[in-house]
C-alpha cells in the first residue's frame, strides 16, 4: 500500500534537516529586503511573508494527526520540528513588526497591542505558542507526563484560530486568501471533532455489544 511505503520512507528520514532548511526562507527574505529586491516596501513584504510562513507551519503541524487518522500517514516524528519552526517564524514576524515597522514608536506599538483587536489577537496567538515551544523537548514531556503534556499542547488550537483571524481581520475588503487559511484551520479542527465523535461512538458500541471473549 502507498501509505505503508510512505511510512517506511518517513521512518528512514531524520527530522533534524528541518532545523537547517526551515530558517533558510527567513534568511533569504531578510537578505532580499536588505538588498532592495523586495520592492518599494520591504518591511511590509517581510512582515506579510513571515506571518504567512508561521501560519502555514501551524497548519502543517495541525495536519499531522488527521493525516494519521484518515490517511494512515505517520508524520509524528516531524511535528516537533514543524512546531518549533512555526514559533520561530511567528517570532520573526513579531520582531519585524516591532523593530522595523513600528521603529522607535514604542508607545504606539504598545497602544496598538491593547487597542487594535487584530494586533491583540496576533499577540495572543504568539504568547500561546510560548509554553508550547518551551515544552517541545523530551525532558518536558517526561516531567509533565504524556497526558498533561498533550493537554497543554491543545493550546495549538486556539493559537491557530487566533493566527488565522489575525490575518482575516487586518485586510481591507474581502480578499480570498486569508479566508482560505481560516478555512484550513477550521477544517483541521473540525476533523478532530469528527474523529473524536467516531471514537466515542465505537466505544459506546463496544460497551453495548459484549466482546466474544467476555461471554
Amino acid at each position, binding site marked *: 500500500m502507498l501509505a505503508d511505503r510512505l511510512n517506511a520512507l518517513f521512518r528512514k528520514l531524520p527530522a533534524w534537516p528541518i532545523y537547517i532548511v526551515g530558517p533558510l526562507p527567513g534568511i533569504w527574505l531578510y537578505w532580499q529586503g536588505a538588498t532592495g529586491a523586495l520592492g518599494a516596501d520591504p518591511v511590509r513584504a517581510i512582515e506579510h511573508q513571515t506571518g504567512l510562513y508561521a501560519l502555514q507551519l501551524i497548519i502543517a503541524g495541525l495536519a499531522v494527526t488527521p493525516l494519521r487518522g484518515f490517511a494512515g500517514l505517520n508524520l509524528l516524528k516531524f511535528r516537533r520540528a514543524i512546531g518549533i519552526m512555526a514559533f520561530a517564524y511567528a517570532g520573526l514576524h513579531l520582531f519585524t513588526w516591532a523593530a*522595523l515597522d513600528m521603529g522607535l514608536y514604542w508607545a504606539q506599538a504598545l497602544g496598538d497591542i491593547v487597542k*487594535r483587536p487584530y494586533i491583540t489577537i496576533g499577540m495572543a496567538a504568539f504568547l500561546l505558542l510560548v509554553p508550547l515551544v518551551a515544552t517541545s523537548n523530551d525532558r518536558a514531556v517526561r516531567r509533565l507526563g504524556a497526558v498533561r503534556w498533550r493537554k497543554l499542547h491543545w493550546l495549538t488550537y486556539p493559537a491557530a484560530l487566533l493566527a488565522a483571524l489575525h490575518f482575516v481581520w487586518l485586510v481591507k475588503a474581502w480578499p480570498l486568501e486569508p479566508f482560505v487559511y481560516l478555512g484550513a484551520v477550521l477544517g483541521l479542527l473540525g476533523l478532530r471533532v469528527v474523529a473524536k465523535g467516531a471514537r466515542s461512538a465505537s466505544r459506546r458500541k463496544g460497551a453495548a455489544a459484549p466482546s466474544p471473549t467476555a461471554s
Partner: protein
Amino acid sequence: MRGHRPDLKWSDVTPKHVFMNRRALIAGAAGLALAGPAMAKLAYSRSDYSTPDAPTNLEDITSYNNFYEFGFGKGDPAKYAGALTTDPWSIKIDGLVDRPGEYGLDDILKGVSLEERIYRFRCVEAWAMIVPWIGFPLSGLLDRVGVQSKAKYVAFETLLRPSEMRAQKTSALDWPYREGLRLDEARHPLTILATGLYGEEIPNQNGAPIRLVVPWKYGFKSIKSIVRISLTDRQPETTWNALQPEEYGFYANVNPEVDHPRWSQATERRVGAGLFGGRQDTLKFNGYEEVAGLYVGQDLARDY
C-alpha cells in the same frame, strides 16, 4: 500665385499648444535616454504648491499601487494594468452643469496649461509617498462646463470595463469605483486632475489617462481612470464609504488624531525608505494646513 489654395483657414495653422508641445517633445528627447521606455514627454510649468521634499522613485510609485480593478496585491496594477486601453478616452460630464456632454480627453486638455505638483500622498493604510504629478486644477474644468448654483458636490466614476480590468470580473468591490468631493473641496487650488507623472504621461497603474489628486485626503479619494464627473446637490455615494462606513468616511481627510478603527493614523511609513526607514509622524491634512478653512465649524472626528 495660381497654385495658391484660398480655402486655408486660421484653424489650419498649427495651434499654439500643439507646437509648444512639440518644442517640449524635442527638449524632452534629450532626457529620454535617462527615462527608459518612450513615454510621451509633457510640457509643464513648476508650481508653488509643490512640496520641497524629494520625490519617491518612479520605480516605487509605479510598482506599489492600490488599484483594486486589477487585483488586491500592491504589485497587481503594475502587472495587469497594461491591458487597459486609454486612447480613445472621454469623460461624461453631467448633472447640474450648463454644458453637459461626453468630452473627449483632447477637448478636456485643450488650452489647459499643465503644472508639476509634487505632493505628499498618504494612503489610509498608513504608508506615504512623494509624487511629482503633472496636472491642472479641477476648478478650471468645472468653470468651463459651467457649474449651476444648486450644485454642492462633485461625483466621480472610474471606468467599468471587466474585459480589461480583470478584477472587475469579481465582486471585490461594488464596481464601478465611485468617489466624491464637496464643491468647495473640488474647487480648492490644491485639487487637480493629473495626466502625468515624472514629466511623462501617467502610467496605467497610476490611473491613466486622467485621475483626481486631492493631497490632503487619504489616497482612496483620489479616484483613477475617470470616465464620469457629475455635479449634484446631494452628497454622492462613494465606494469605500458604502462598503465599510465606520472605517472609511466621505471626507477621509488625513488626520493623525482620528484613528482608523483597526489601526492608528498617528504615524506613517515612507514607501521607498528601505528596510530601516522607520516611521514618521502623520501631519494634519497631510501637512496642507491651508485647507483647514474648508472645515471651520465641522467636527472632524465625526466627519472623518
